[in-house]
């Protein structure tokens, strides 16, 4: 199975890189869940409905704001999937913004 490199901008100016299986039909949220479950238990992220309604899982996906439960986990132009918290407002930790 081919691999997907995921780069995540985290708290304290840290950027971590993970390598996970590239699966068809996998959302960004599912990729983040896989990283929390199998690679890094300290990763913080937020979600609720998984169906594009609550908007609490919004983050920068390959540089653009998007709902992680709706966007597919695919590499951007530079070959990696790049995730970061939204730029506006206070970041509580990693991908979680204050609401």
């Amino acid at each position, binding site marked *: 199975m081919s691999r997907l490199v995921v780069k995540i901008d985290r708290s304290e100016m840290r950027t971590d890189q993970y390598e996970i299986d590239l699966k068809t*039909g996998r959302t960004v949220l599912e990729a983040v869940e896989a990283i929390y479950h199998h690679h890094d*238990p300290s990763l*913080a992220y937020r979600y*609720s409905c998984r*169906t594009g*309604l*609550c908007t609490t899982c919004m983050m920068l996906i390959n540089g653009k704001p998007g709902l992680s439960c*709706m966007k597919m986990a695919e590499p951007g132009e530079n070959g990696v999937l790049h995730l970061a918290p939204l730029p506006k407002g206070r970041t*509580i930790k990693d991908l979680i913004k204050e609401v």
Partner: protein
Amino acid sequence: MDEIITDILVIGSGAAGLAASVYAAESSQQILVIDKGAIGRSGSTVGAVQIASLGSWSHREDSLDAYQQDIRESGRGLSSPVLTDVLVQDISARLEDLLQWGLKLDKNEHNDILVAATSGHTIPRSISSKKGKTGLAILQVLTKRAKNSSNIKRWSDVITLELVKANGRVAGAVVLDLKENKSYLIRCKTVILATGGIGQLYSTTSNPAQSTGDGFALSLTAGAALVDMEQIQFYPVSLIHPPSLSGLCLSFYHLAKLYNRNGERFMDKYEPETMENTTRDKLAIAIASEVEEGLGTPGGGVWVDATGNIEEVKRQFHHEYQLCLDRGLDLASHLAEAGPAAHFIMGGIWIDGDAASTTPGLYAAGESAGGLHGGNRLGNNALSECIVFGARAGKAAARESARMKSITDGVPLQTKKADKIINVISNSEQGTERSYACKKAVQTLMGKYVGVVRSTKELLQAKAEIKAIEEKLDQVKITSSPDFYSKEILDYIEAVHMVTTAQAIVEAALTRKESRGAHHNKNFPEQLTEVKHTIVKVENGKMTVQEEGEV
């Protein structure tokens, strides 16, 4: 521990919690509403499609009696007459309030309010807002009103560990602010629980991430009684594929045809008169029975064919149609694979007509409360329950709080469970168990042993396995830094609540020795003549179950 003082503490900020806050705020009491996620955006309300109600849009034949009769018929003898009466009496006034505060109802091409038919309602009475994003629309209206109330404070990312008591009544709560992993003692006069349901106790669910049954565990520890906890609604037609949409409710099943793996329209065997357009309990049991007999699809469900009514599906259920299309499933030309998913708990905290629990000072509203829907909830009655009983809880808590002279200032409040949780977190470096894995273990066993079709042997197996998970939770390992938000800590606290709630469900299910409503035990397939409720309590640290007649 730092202390916070308020008059009324509301836990949960879906439609029920926000309605409670907004109506309580009509008094001069101070209200603090907290949510373990983002306020106003973290509960099941977000996904609710329509709301059943009486009002200017009602059909000529509709009435308080007709609406109440439908709820009681669907409740299989377990719906509380007191609660059904309150719902039908109050619903049109609550809807009027929402309309005054800015809710806009969907209209048809003639500019009339759109009124839809829903299975089990003998008369069409389901209305909607924002093209079927009704829950979201109601949340926006209530959030705006809460923001504009000077006596409501909102606090996101705060999870409750334990309700604390003084002089025999609930007098506050120990909470953990997840943002900084700091615990607080909140002292108050009354507490309203509006923490939603239990979908996340199952591996396949339509519910949001937060539905881990926290309120049931919290209220049990505070001594409150839970009614009919075995009554769990499995939404019969929820997507199996694609996995990213697993559990998504296909609300249009009454407009579709269902087939088993042999291409038989099997509802002909179970409900030849209504076919697919039947109540959720009957449809879920029929689908689960087909799968048990080896007639299911490869993914363990049935095929859904909506092609015959696709224009109506697109019109009434646009969000669902579009979501499927975006993930490569075009319902206009393809079959969907679907089966039952944990959706709603009809049982819950035992309340009276003013949403007061059996423990003084504690109120409950929305899905956390039990007894209104009995053995089966009719579609679109969840939002109705939230706004009616949220308002009742808010008003009654405000009245009671106003009568009380002071908050239990300075009175030592005893905590037990919270101390243990905090202690386990502090010593978790030596632990071995991942908290998310404990949650997953609960979900797996509940899906396997406490699903649509149950048996006594499986329920006993569930009981033993839950006990084993409870023990594992003492050995939890939390690796993330203690000064920051930690998903591992959130998962751990949720797992603790899930275990207690799962125990209550299993105990209630073992006690009901018949099949009634959503509880189907193949060892006791018949429905008994006498109607009894299961009542779960924790007394002297031990969980007990009793059966009672009319409550």
